[in-house]
């Protein structure tokens, strides 16, 4: 694991009025590994993810992709680099069906003149979406109904399938298991491993220490807007992680 990080943040800072959300935060993730990003509420996890996925401008600091400095100013830039994010609120359009959501903003067009006129290739998108869901082992029961009428687990599966389908370098998963039952959670954790095995870097944000220990290769801890610790998951314990999050052990050691 001495590889160069695929995505790296150096000294990111961002203030919202009097609140310092990020205070010189560092972060790095390498290809083909799962990094868990943990921290207490308000530690800056979501802000960091937003900054790295093009949804938030930072006041200062540098983001490097493949070793080169980049400016990820919009989600489109992030997508162009192969970075996708699954947000806590999933960011699906509830009235659209799973296929439409999967290809939203990246519609496959009909060939030739019809495509130039803006006509979409519904069949092609349907096949692509079905493949993506199958690859994930996600049983999306009906490709024709609005995702708003589906269960939380199914919606989660669709959001993750969408991100994984388009991300070929980095996937951010913000609390992907928070709303899920036992079986769906196992499914998501399986998916994370499968995506990693394809060489994609996975950043996994979670409050659930058992899930973090189960699925991650490394753990990075944020506290008060900066990275305070990095652990190899195999050589750490839940107590150590919680201690680093809350700062109790940190001060004592």
């Amino acid at each position, binding site marked *: 694991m001495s590889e160069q990080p695929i995505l790296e943040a150096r000294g990111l800072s961002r203030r919202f009025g009097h609140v310092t959300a990020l205070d010189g935060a560092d972060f790095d993730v390498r290809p083909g590994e799962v990094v868990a990003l943990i921290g207490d509420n308000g530690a800056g996890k979501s802000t960091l993810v937003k900054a790295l996925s093009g949804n938030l401008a930072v006041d200062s600091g540098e983001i490097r992709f493949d070793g080169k400095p980049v400016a990820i100013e919009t989600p489109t830039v992030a*997508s162009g680099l192969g970075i996708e994010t699954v947000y806590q609120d999933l960011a699906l359009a509830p009235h659209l069906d799973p296929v439409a959501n999967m290809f939203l903003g990246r519609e496959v067009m009909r060939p030739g003149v019809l495509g130039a006129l803006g006509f979409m290739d519904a069949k092609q998108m349907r096949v692509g979406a079905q493949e993506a869901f199958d690859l994930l082992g996600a049983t999306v029961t*009906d490709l024709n109904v609005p995702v708003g009428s589906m269960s939380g687990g199914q919606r989660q599966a669709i959001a993750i399938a969408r991100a994984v389908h388009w991300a070929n370098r980095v996937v951010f998963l913000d609390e992907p298991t928070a709303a899920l039952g036992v079986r769906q959670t196992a499914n998501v954790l399986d998916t994370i491993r499968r995506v990693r095995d394809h060489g994609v870097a996975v950043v996994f944000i979670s409050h659930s220490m058992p899930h973090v220990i189960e699925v991650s290769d490394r753990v990075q801890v944020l506290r008060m807007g900066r990275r305070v610790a990095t652990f190899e998951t195999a050589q750490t314990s839940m107590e150590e992680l919680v201690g680093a999050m809350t700062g109790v052990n940190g001060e004592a050691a």
Partner: protein
Amino acid sequence: MSVQAPPTSITTRIVRVQAFQILLVLIAIWVVFAILEGDRFATVGNMRLVAQNAAILAILGVGMTFVIITAGIDLSIGSVMVFSGVIGAKVMVAQGGDGWGTAWLGIAASVAAGLAWGLVNGVLVAKAKIPPLIVTLGTLGMALGLAQIITKGVDIREVPLVMQSKIGYGNAFGDVPMLAGIALVFLVVGGVVLHLTRFGRHTYAIGSNEEAARRVGLKVDRHLIAVYAISGGLAGVAGILSLAQFATTAIAGQSQTNLNVIAAVVIGGTSLFGGVGTIFGTVVGLFIPAVLQNGFIIVGIQPFWQQVAVGAVLIVAVYVDQLRRAAAQRGGRTNVLSRLRGRESTSNEE
């Protein structure tokens, strides 16, 4: 992750669509009038009249359907229509003559005027982030006021003869009035764009979840501006067609137009909360008031009852939409009939 359920069949999907349920209502109304006064109601001549009267509203309805699907509203269409008609009439009067050259000049001027108002609406909604209700209420007043300033409050009644005879009262083919033929073209194009193209897909997505649309990289602001511009442009088309039909700018004649079109769109199953709607539904929603009005007159009931009936249909349609949305939020099926029945049975038990 879960047990594979059979995919919903096409027939159940059609039956669940509100536009289809409303179509049944329309057919029922039509049949009742046909039974009561078949000789005078169910005739080609009378249907021709109904289609002619609904044509201009249908064109406005296309734009309004797009706007409402984005979870917006356009109150300004009636005024923009008047303003566009006035601009078109002014241009044609200045040009003079009764031929197609003059007519085309007027058409272009009218559509451009409507488009300009639509762009103003769109920019204010998308960029200035002012609620559409307020923006279009403002431009409603502005467009009408300016139309009156330009004409000093006196209707212009000089319209090239060719427009009146070929567009206003001509036939497109067979017995189909030209106005209805033109409306049909706009409806078909509007429906195709809405349901088959990327532009339509993005319209639904923005109305369904604007934030999600932004996050996947859709150019939401630009899209909203385009949608309001379409609505304005179609109001321009409606303005010039109204001129052709009535040979007057009818400045005072469109005060209810916006509400009539909105009612039709909503009756047709387009949700005011965005993300849902069809052009087909809008057509059906337009014909319910049109057929009611026509039928009441023929049957000899005071035509004012039409307003009462349409108001009731509107409220029922939105209530059905509410039930549907509530059911969807619970993750359940959206069978409204069983829901209504369920209500009755529980209240009986109490």
